[in-house]
């Protein structure tokens, strides 16, 4: 059964100019361009019935921010990887295809600063405190140090 699924994914990946690799048994990676993500995800969800999105991970890749969608279906995990440039971190939201993605996209918005166009809750914070300074970069970028964040949030107190 899993072989059929893998073949379906490989076919879908080819149709969306994406690179499909078998990471190991039960884990497939699809590297795809931002413009093709929505089309691919829609077909993945409707044709292979891989409806369950475990979560979305953000990554700091130097020049770009990586976004990985982790789908799970029938003993197979499918990592759909895409990137957005750091100078313009905008991605397309998939909440109209997978409504359960709404909070995961909010989390990446908080942690990496990526704007998901089409996600209605981009105007609010999910995890970061209300006192987060406007000029402080998102915390999970590699250039940000925890000690600096602590100072700005007022969590470092001088002990006598």
């Amino acid at each position, binding site marked *: 059964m899993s072989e059929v699924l893998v073949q379906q994914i490989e076919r879908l990946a080819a149709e969306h100019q994406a690179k499909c690799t078998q990471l190991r048994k039960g884990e497939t990676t699809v590297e795809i361009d931002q413009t093709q993500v929505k089309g691919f995800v829609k077909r993945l969800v409707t044709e292979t019935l891989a409806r369950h999105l475990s979560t979305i991970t953000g990554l700091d890749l130097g020049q770009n921010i990586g976004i990985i969608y982790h789908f799970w279906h029938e003993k197979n995990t499918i990592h759909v990887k895409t990137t957005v440039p750091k100078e313009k971190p905008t991605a397309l939201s998939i909440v109209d295809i997978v409504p359960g993605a709404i909070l995961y996209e909010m989390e990446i918005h908080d942690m990496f600063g990526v704007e998901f166009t089409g996600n209605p809750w981009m105007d609010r914070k999910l995890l970061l405190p209300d006192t987060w300074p406007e000029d402080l970069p998102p915390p999970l970028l590699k250039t940000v140090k925890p000690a600096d964040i*602590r100072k700005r949030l007022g969590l470092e*107190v001088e002990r006598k």
Partner: protein
Amino acid sequence: MLEKVATWARKRSPWVFHINASSCNGCDIELVASLTPRYDIERFGAVLVPSPRHADVLIVTGTVNAQTKDRLRRVYEQLPEPKHVIALGACAAAGGVFKGCYNVGQGVQDVIPVDMFIPGCPPRPEAIMYGVLKLLGEVK
């Protein structure tokens, strides 16, 4: 004279308000377990109250992150005098295993004054009861 009666009454039966300030819930479930029949902290008169305005003792668990700092201070101000604060667990004492994380304080004593630290990750119900009763002995 009235003062003596009031102190005696307070000493016999501390009313405790519990606040979870960014805790993993480990300390909270051990605190609640101390209410259950095996440990039964109520036989010593300690009672969990629903509002800080009725409490003598404030028990704080957790790392006190930037979001809960202000709420903790506000709750502390709502407690009527004389009030006491117990910091429960390693996180409340000094940040615990999360010390250095970007949204974690360095302990409850940076936000409000603390009278008693109960160490542990999480402290056993017996340790919690010992700490509360020791504090009772200190209430003058």
